[in-house]
């Protein structure tokens, strides 16, 4: 177990591209931290800086209060699981797991017991003598995990470890990773661009964009109180609806388009231009009663357990997504009345994109 601390960590690549713009972060003992963000935002770069595979251009990274900027990857006592597994193709799975231990001079019997223990945990006992090429994707992923856990490192680093697996296996492996991490209690940093993985795995979530940490917090905090428009749009699926609005003169409403008026309990000045964010799951259908919002149906997608309805809010071509439980049949053009409680309304500054 260990803590990982980043202090204004920066990365400028050799070609002059600045991939990380100063990140501060403190990861606690045994915490599962997830880095999430769109492609190219610097997640892998940051992870690789922690691993020591990329140099740190500025700032400091410490593991257990010891600055590791100049420490070689092997001496940082970390283990990493790569997206493409990076197993040694010519070695048996046993040797793949044993290799790191051998290089560290463990005794044969010690290596054997550690590898067998890891294989037992990961249900790989029957595959130890085979080569990685003779395993399925999920099994290879397990071998890669095994290679990481045999060493009992201070920190686990995962770079999109599940993105090469099919959807079902991904769910299984996700649970397995979470389970394993909790059982072993090893501090972990996990990179993904899949927000379901991010939400389910994280004790703490870091949403990155363009080399900076947009928001750091527990998944639920980030879901409930996104600090910026970017975070609000990135976390949650289907994505949050954004509507341009203006706060009414008496500050009790926000007016969207020309017909929709939403109750507010925010403290904002009158007449301010804002972006209103509402999650698709936070609308409530009012049945036949008159509700505060009415909109006509443009399209319906049934997913079985839930139904996504795309509505015309009278703000141009943009759809507003509504998510309701169960299956519903709405003909195109049906007018639905909806309500929304004020505390489910997010307001963002139209210019800065910051939460109000």
């Amino acid at each position, binding site marked *: 177990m260990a803590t990982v601390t980043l202090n204004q960590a920066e990365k400028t690549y050799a070609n002059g591209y600045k991939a990380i713009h100063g990140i501060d972060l403190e990861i606690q003992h045994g915490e599962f931290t997830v880095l999430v963000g769109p492609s190219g935002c610097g997640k892998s770069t940051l992870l690789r800086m922690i691993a020591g*595979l990329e140099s740190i251009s500025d700032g400091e990274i410490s593991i257990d209060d010891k600055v590791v900027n100049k420490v070689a990857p*092997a001496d940082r006592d970390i283990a990493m699981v790569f997206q493409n597994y990076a197993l*040694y193709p010519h070695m048996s799975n046993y040797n793949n797991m044993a*290799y790191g231990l051998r290089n560290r001079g463990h005794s044969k019997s010690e290596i054997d017991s550690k590898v067998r223990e890891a294989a037992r945990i990961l249900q790989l006992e029957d595959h130890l003598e085979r080569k990685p090429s003779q395993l399925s994707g999920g099994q290879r992923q397990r071998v890669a995990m095994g290679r990481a856990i045999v060493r009992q490192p201070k920190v686990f680093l995962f770079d999109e470890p599940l993105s090469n697996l099919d959807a079902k296996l991904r769910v299984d492996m996700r649970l397995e990773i979470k389970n394993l991490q909790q059982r072993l209690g090893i501090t972990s940093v996990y990179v993904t661009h899949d927000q379901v993985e991010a939400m389910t795995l994280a004790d703490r979530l870091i949403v990155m964009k363009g080399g900076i940490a947009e928001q750091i917090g527990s998944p639920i905090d980030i879901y409930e109180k996104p600090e910026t428009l970017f975070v609000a749009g990135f976390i949650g699926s289907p994505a949050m609806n954004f509507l341009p609005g203006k706060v009414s003169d008496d500050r009790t409403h926000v007016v969207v388009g020309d017909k929709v008026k939403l109750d507010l309990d925010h403290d904002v000045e009158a007449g301010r231009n804002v972006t209103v964010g509402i999650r698709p799951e936070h609308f409530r259908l009012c049945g036949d009663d008159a509700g505060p919002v009415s909109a006509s149906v443009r399209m319906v997608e049934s997913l079985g357990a839930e139904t996504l309805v795309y509505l015309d809010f009278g703000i141009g071509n943009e759809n507003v997504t509504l998510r309701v439980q169960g299956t519903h049949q709405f003909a195109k053009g049906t007018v639905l009345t909806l309500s929304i409680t004020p505390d489910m309304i997010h307001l963002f500054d139209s210019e800065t994109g910051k939460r109000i």
Partner: protein
Amino acid sequence: MYQSKWRIFTNHAILILGALFMIMPVWIAFVSSTHTREFVFQNGLQFWPGEHFFENYGAILFDPSATKGRVTALEMLFNSMVLGLGFAIGKVIISMMAAYAIVYFRFKLAVPLFWVVFSTLLLPLEVRIVPSYEVVASLGLLNTYTGLILPLIASATGTFFFRQFYRSVPDELLEAARLDGAGPIRFFIDILVPLSVTMIAAIFIIMFVVGWNQYLWPLLMTTDDQLYTIVIGIKQVYNSLYEGGQIPQFPKAFALTIMATIPPVLVVVVFQRMFVKGLVETEK
């Protein structure tokens, strides 16, 4: 693909003709080497084996006078073997290490150095043979195996092929190995070398054959018969066929030629197995 009977027939006919065309000279040389010299002299080249196989090959292998020098074919085969193996093994090792340095170590001159090495591909041995001779001579290495092999073992071709291969090895393997505590030497030995087996076999085959067939270089480097390679021996035997008013020793000359081809063929056959096996395993 659908093929008519005719098509199959003509395809095979062409292939069989081609194969015969390639094999005939070898066959003629072989069967002619199993007759007495008088017989061949009177009746010309032969198409069917005679009865003097053991006699002729025995003489060539063990009797220095049969090869017109003071060495037997066996000794020359040994010399060629040393040259071929030294040449091939040396080239494989040197070019693997050179490529390793070029691909995996970021030193300032890596790229220009690579191009310098690469451009020497364009220079055949003959261009530098005189200066190389000077160097070997002044080091006192004439008439030694070292002098024969050492100046030839730098290989631009090998370096180039290994470089291309290393660049195709995923970076993550190196990174995983670094995290696993493998230093540069361990990574090379434990990971890169086993992954390169196919490549090594291919380059080894090519280089062995090239080394085996060297003529000009060993001719210059060796004045001592004891170091003659089989290729020089063949040349010498053919040169002296019509000397001294004797009946030309065609059968033994042919025997020597046939023997000279056997080791390269064996190397190709053995290593091709490995080569194909390597290919199949990495494909999976």
